[in-house]
Structures are given as C-alpha cells and as structure tokens.
C-alpha cells in the first residue's frame, strides 16, 4: 500500500512518517509512506492508495478529494490528538481502514 501524507510544509509530517514506517516494519508490512507539501501534492496523488492530510491542512480536504477522485484515491484528515501524539501505529491503522473502506 502507498500512503501519502500532506501538510503545509511537510516538516512535522515527515517525523510522523518515520514513526509510521517503524510501526509498519514491526508488523512486517511493506508499505511506501512519504510526506509532501501541499504545493507538490497534485503530482504525488496519482501514485498513492490513500492520502492523509495533517490537521493544519483540514481546509484543503475538498480540494484534495477533487484531485484524488479521478485516480480512486481515498482522502481523509488525521485527528488533532493522534497527530499531536505523533502516534505512528494509530495513524497507520487509520490509513489501512481508509484503504479498506474504499474497496
């Protein structure tokens, strides 16, 4: 599964990526997880299965959905609490759930 994280600059989100990668590895899962800034997101969305948006970019969700729709990519916003706790395993589960709901 390919998980794309989007935030305004991609800085704090890249730390969350590290935590999520660690959690995936521990579970023996081969996922591609990466973070980009909003401005770069359009060219990355076609390569993703799910797009997770940082809570600081929640207002961007409807635009992201428009970009993701032609590719059948699911989009949702990470909760403020999970993001604040930098909770890799929980956000990873969130991404998996989002991907399963789409199917």
């Amino acid at each position: 599964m390919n998980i794309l994280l989007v935030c305004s600059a991609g800085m704090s989100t890249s730390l969350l990526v590290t935590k999520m990668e660690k959690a995936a590895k521990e579970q023996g899962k081969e996922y591609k997880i990466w973070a980009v800034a909003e401005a770069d997101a359009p060219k990355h969305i076609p390569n993703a299965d799910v797009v997770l948006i940082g809570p600081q970019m929640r207002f961007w969700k409807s635009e992201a959905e428009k970009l993701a729709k032609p590719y059948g990519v699911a989009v949702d916003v990470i909760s403020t609490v999970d993001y604040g706790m930098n909770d890799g395993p929980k956000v990873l589960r969130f991404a998996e759930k989002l991907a399963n709901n789409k199917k």
Partner: protein
Amino acid sequence: MDEMESICFQIISNAGTARSLLIEALQEAREGNFDEVENKMSEANKYFSEAHKIHGKLIQKEAQGEPVPFSLLFMHAEDQLMSTETIRHLTKELLFMYKRL
C-alpha cells in the same frame, strides 16, 4: 518519543488545527454562512488556547531557571503558533469586511 518532541507536536497539532479552522471560517464567510463562521471561530479559539497553554508552560519552566532544549522542531512549533496568531487577527478583520458586504 522524548518529552520535548511530544510537547512540540502538541503545539503544532493544536495550532495547526486552529489555523485550518480559521481558514474554514473564511470559506464559510465567502458563502455567507455566518452561523457556521461563529462555530468555526469558537472551535479555532479552543485549539489555539490549548496550543498557547502548552507553550506557556515551557516559558514558565525557563523562567524558573530550567533550561528548555532548543531544536529545529521547537522553532517550527513556535513558527506555527505565531503564524496562527497572525492569521487569527487578520481573519477577525476580514470577517468584519465580509459582514459589511
């Protein structure tokens, strides 16, 4: 995750959510949904206060002589907090304008 990293993330997350809500308030104002604007603004204030509260604890800690370790992540957290503060002031002014139109 060490304590300082956790504090930084809580500031970033709360300040960031507040910022998103402020922009959502402006988007609602654009559509003329002023009841929804009020909801978004009061929610934004809640998250913004939380971010400030967490930041304030660090300032108190430093004032008591306990050093606060510095990092790029912490600078980023303060940056998020201050940009949200600026956007909050400007959003309030823009809302006055939207209401007059």
